[in-house]
């Protein structure tokens, strides 16, 4: 970097006549930035400051925690785990063969409403130990194909479910192929309980990610049938189950919206669910649950935030308190010069 100045630029260094202007031009202009003298605020961790910070956090967090917890407690949730119950006794030891057989898989469940449930009541199915986030799985889709009919044969990213018998599959890929295919029918007091399956997916997905001119082709035509089949006459933008399913979950335990019940349910009302137990979670011991849940401003029933807030708030309160006690018991003057003993040779080796 310090290469010898070439002759060409030597004028500034050598000649006497350039000495005077050089003095001024080379002298840097004074500014607070160049002198590193920008006005700065230099906070230090005084006990007062730290204790009040922790106190403030606890004062803010505990009420929020309480509110969140209450919100979560307000949510009424009915969870019914059915994957074992819906297998006939004689198949209990060999559930995989049952699910793969052509046997009648209809199953009836009884759900009792514990508390008043305000509409809309969301119907979810919950899968456990299902890795929608597996790398092989999560990548196996073709967004361009879903969006636009013109690129219907763009299946390069869909391996191994890209084509059947040489024809491109629409929608291709493992995700679509393994579409969840259990169905639920609800009845209350022998009356059909209507489940609205419209607008259960994101509007943005219906409008922009799944084309209204893209029709399923060659779907579930292969030798190996995965999950649900799609009506080849309905465009993908209206196949909301598919759209919901294709929003892959990041966790191995997840709920997906099945539909909405748009009426209130009263306590002790009994709902009969007739379900088709088609989906194979038995080969990997996955659980299947049917969930009916109301919602709050925080979403579904989840105590985590409330508890975490209370814990953090409590801990902060405790810390603030103990800092205060320690400070009072063993006060220490900040910046006491007696801590500065330079007596020992600092450069000693």
């Amino acid at each position, binding site marked *: 970097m310090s290469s010898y100045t070439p002759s060409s*630029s*030597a004028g500034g260094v050598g000649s006497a006549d350039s000495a005077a202007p050089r003095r001024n031009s080379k002298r*840097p202009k*004074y500014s607070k930035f160049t002198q*590193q003298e920008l006005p700065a605020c230099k906070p230090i961790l005084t006990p007062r400051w730290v204790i009040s910070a922790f106190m403030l956090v606890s004062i803010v967090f505990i009420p929020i925690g309480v509110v969140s917890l209450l919100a979560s407690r307000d949510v009424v949730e009915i969870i019914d785990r059915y994957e074992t119950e819906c297998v006939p006794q004689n198949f209990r030891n060999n559930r995989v063969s049952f699910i793969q057989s052509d046997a009648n898989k209809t199953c009836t469940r009884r759900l009792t409403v514990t508390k008043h449930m305000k509409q809309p009541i969301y119907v979810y199915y919950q899968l456990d130990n299902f890795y929608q986030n597996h790398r092989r799985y999560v990548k196996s889709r073709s967004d361009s194909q879903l969006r636009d009919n013109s690129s219907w044969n763009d299946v390069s990213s869909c391996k191994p479910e890209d084509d059947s018998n040489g024809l491109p599959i629409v929608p291709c890929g493992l995700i679509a192929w393994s579409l969840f295919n259990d169905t639920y029918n609800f009845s209350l007091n022998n009356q059909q309980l209507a489940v609205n399956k419209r607008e259960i997916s994101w509007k943005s997905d219906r409008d922009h990610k799944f084309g209204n001119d893209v029709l399923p082709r060659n779907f579930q035509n292969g030798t190996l049938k*995965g999950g649900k089949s799609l009506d080849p006459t309905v465009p993908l933008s209206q196949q909301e189950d598919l759209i919901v399913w294709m929003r892959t979950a*990041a966790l191995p335990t997840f709920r997906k919206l099945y539909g909405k019940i748009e009426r209130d349910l009263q306590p002790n009302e009994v709902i009969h669910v007739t379900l088709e137990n088609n989906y194979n979670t038995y080969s*990997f011991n996955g659980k299947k649950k049917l969930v009916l849940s109301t919602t709050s401003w925080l979403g579904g029933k989840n105590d985590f935030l409330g508890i975490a*807030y209370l814990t953090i708030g409590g801990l902060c309160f405790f810390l603030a308190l103990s800092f205060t006690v320690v400070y009072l018991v063993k006060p220490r003057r900040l*910046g006491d010069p007696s801590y500065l003993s330079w007596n020992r040779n600092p450069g000693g080796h």
Partner: protein
Amino acid sequence: MKRYVYINENESSHELYCDNRISNRKYTVLNFLPKNLWEQFSRFMNQYFLLIACLQLWSLITPVNPASTWGPLIFIFAVSASKEAWDDYNRYLSDKKANEKLVWVVRQGIRKHIQAQDIHVGNIVWLRENDEVPCDLVLIGTSDPQGLCYVETSALDGETDLKTRGIPATCMGIDFELLHKIKGVIECPNPDKDIRRFDANLRLFPPFIDNDVCPLTIKNTILQSCYLRNTEWACGVAVHTGNETKLGMSRGIPEPKLTAMDAMIDKLTGAIFVFQIVVVMVLGIAGNVWKDTEARKQWYVLYPLEGPWYELLVIPLRFELLCSIMIPISIKVSLDLVKSLYAKFIDWDSEMIDYETGIPSHATNTAISEDLGQVEYIMTDKTGTLTENRMIFRRCCINGVFYGNESGDALKLLNAVAGSSPDVIQFVTVMAICNTVIPIKSKTGAILYKAQSQDEDALVNAAAQLHMVYANKNANILEIRFNGSIIKYELLEILEFTSDRKRMSVVVKDCQNGKILLLSKGADEAILPYAYDGQQTRTFIEVVEQYAQLGLRTLCLAWRELKEDEYQEWSLMFKEASSTLVDREWRIAEVCQRLEHEFEVLGVTAIEDCLQDGVPETIETLRKAGINFWMLTGDKQNTAIQIALSCNFISPEPKGQLLLIDGKTEDEVCRSLERVLLTMRITSSEPKDVAFVVDGWALEIALKHYRKAFTELAILSRTAICCRVTPSQKAQLVELLKSCDYRTLAIGDGGNDVRMIQQADIGVGISGREGLQAARAADYSIGKFRFLKRLILVHGRYSYNRTAFLSQYSFYKSLVICFIQIFFSFISGVSGTSLFNSVSLMAYNVFYTSVPVLVSVLDKDLSEGTVMQHPQILFYCQAGRLLNPSTFAGWFGRSLFHAIIVFVITIHAYAYEKSEMEELSMVALSGCIWLQAFVVALETNSFTVLQHLAIWGNLVAFYVINWIISAIPASGMYTIMFRLCRQPSYWITMFLIVAAGMGPVLALKYLRYTYRPSKINTLQQAERMGGPILTLGNIEPQPRSIEKEVSPLSITQPKSRSPVYEPLLSDSPNSSRRSLGPGTPFDFFQLQSRLSSNYSRNCKDN
């Protein structure tokens, strides 16, 4: 081996030698890309990233879009490449300017105006006054009837005086017009870079008959980049052109220096790399096991039963790619960026401008500022570094009579001169003419002296004040004005000063009586032994000793009358010696020796070299900061010790103790060394300043035979004085300390310090009177020694602190995101899924996290004043307390903790129906960004507006960027950010992450800060509280140099030094400061001669 330059033969040289096109460019348009890429890829880090980027092209294993690595990689490469390209373009422009400059060149016998780049070897180039010399020329004619011209060589060697150059004897008297047609051959060596040698021969062809081969020396050349001064015109033959000139050859690319911090960062990078490999292997194995046990059952994944042969490699490679972000790709760029800013801060610092010359400090090497904060040893030159190198004639002893010891002596001396005491007059005459000084009459009639050596300058000026004015030099005739009359001397020969001979002489002929005189001056040991037999030199030896103890530089003056034939005989030998091509210098020295003997010693002069302002304070402060000082000087032992005492280098008895290592033989040195070592071991526990003194001779023996013992001594001793050392010994000593793993800083001002400066970890050059040579070779150039304090304590320390934070933080932020990816892989079937999308990953390192940390270059943990008062705090930097494996472990732990916090909170708060992939990844990412902002805020010691802007603005920018991306329907995260920002749970999660992540960090930091504060913390507290500690400092704050300029006399004086001696002659602008003592000594002090005031102006102009 040799080149034959045919003068005025245009065609022949074209193929043989290059034209005069100067090129400093590293690249051409064509080779830029490959060459630059090759250079960049020769760095390990870049190779690593390239490998990662290539692996990412394999879609089977890449967890993310290859753009996430290629993007930053290309960005970083583009930044470095465009910086290179810009530098190269600027070099090209300046080359072009030089190449296209018009010069007068003789073509086909006619003078033509052509571009400098078209000059060929053998051309005759004409120069006018103040022209820059376009290539190396051999002079053949000048406007001066004696064939002399003056050149300024400062661009070449940094010496600002004018040098005389003359045409060779054969060319003497050739007519102006005939010069166009001159023909001949110059036999000269191939281009080399030695700017002090040019051993060549010239033979002219008929009609310029002279069959003799005429020797040429460097005196007959004018080299590229010099300036022609005080000469109307000159012309010369181009012998070396373009990049083959002396200047071009000495251009070199210095080896890049690696700072201790860089080494540490590399080490940590290596550790992270190993960690990464371990993680990859563990996860790879786990992934393969999971795949074979669990994944086969997950029918929807549809694993084929039989995979390809590389099946087992796929998952580990995927993890390798996933973990590659552990090593932050941006760290190199960030570091380069902040380092160049550190350097800029040094350049800009208005407190480090030398207001006498107006030269600001300059960081030539922008990459090593952190090392300044870690200096452990400072090796300093004495003359010009600690001292002003502004010589003032203080005392003299003429023939046993002392002048200058007590006040009134000057008058005595003046009277003696006036009284025409022959000894005194002879003495003063030697002072006036035994030199190479060039007097220049300015327009006002005042005489300015251009002197190569400051000693000569002092002597000539002193002589002038004693009314022996060296008035004019007209070719070989020297004019001396003495008491109104003019005495002329004819200068016959100059026997130049070399550091081996340690003396210089002139042979002059007194024009009045035709006597030939040899006048000499030199070091005592180079003069006194050669006194004629009858002379008692004992008094002189004592005087020299006495003066040296006062810290004065002594010169002995002597003369001898030569007989005519003795001179003639010798003159022939001298001519012969001067024209040899081999070992010329040695031959000349030998011949000179034959003349320089049988001296009549006239007396001894004592010249004081004043200490620079603030030297004792600077040394005291830096020694308090735990820096060890070694003084390496070529001066005499006594002088060195005196200077060392007066600048707090060593303490006087009884506090300090000086141990002497001397001896002429191996045995003596060995014994002496062992004795010193023993004393040193015993006293090392006592609070006593022990220093050892060694001279060049003993040092050579010690380094050769007792290296181990000497090394031990070097480690034990905090202070050392090495006198009479050669430049290469200086470099050896630096090397020795470096080999003991100490960070060394070498500071010097002269050409003899260059090797030491280049050898040391940090070289600092003082742009002083000995020229710019040292400053050019150095990494930093400063105007005054006292700026060293600020350079180290302020700039070095801040740079170290800032880089320590920046580098560790860079690893921290990369580790956080990488840990999250690793945790996520545990809940995604160890399959190597990336939680974050490609855009986020790419932007995370390059945008989201790099801006806030960059403003840490403005962070100041302690104010400059506090650091100056408590220089001991530098210990934290020296010992590397802020960046070492254990602090790094802290950051590593913090990143692990934060990753756990972000991950756990995210997957719990966004569980079940909310566990959508894109949303969850954005929640985790924003959690990281929030934590980053607070971590930077917590670690920042001083907030300026810019820091607030960067930290909080960055947080806002993160949302803005993501909103923009979320608005693009084609992007994967379309609408995600809007959706999240509408959810109360998102914000609640963020606050939770911040509180949970920062709470423990804050609590720990607070406890440490309050109950186990480091010294830095204590000082911070004291500073902010404004406690009494601020008054405890026992060093008065450095006066601001700005005030200095206004009133140059109000500078706080260094404490009065023990031996009070008054200036014998007040011939320096400084003298007024020094003579504040009682009893203004001299009468002519007030009536300062016009000359000295001119001199002072002269000084300033330089």
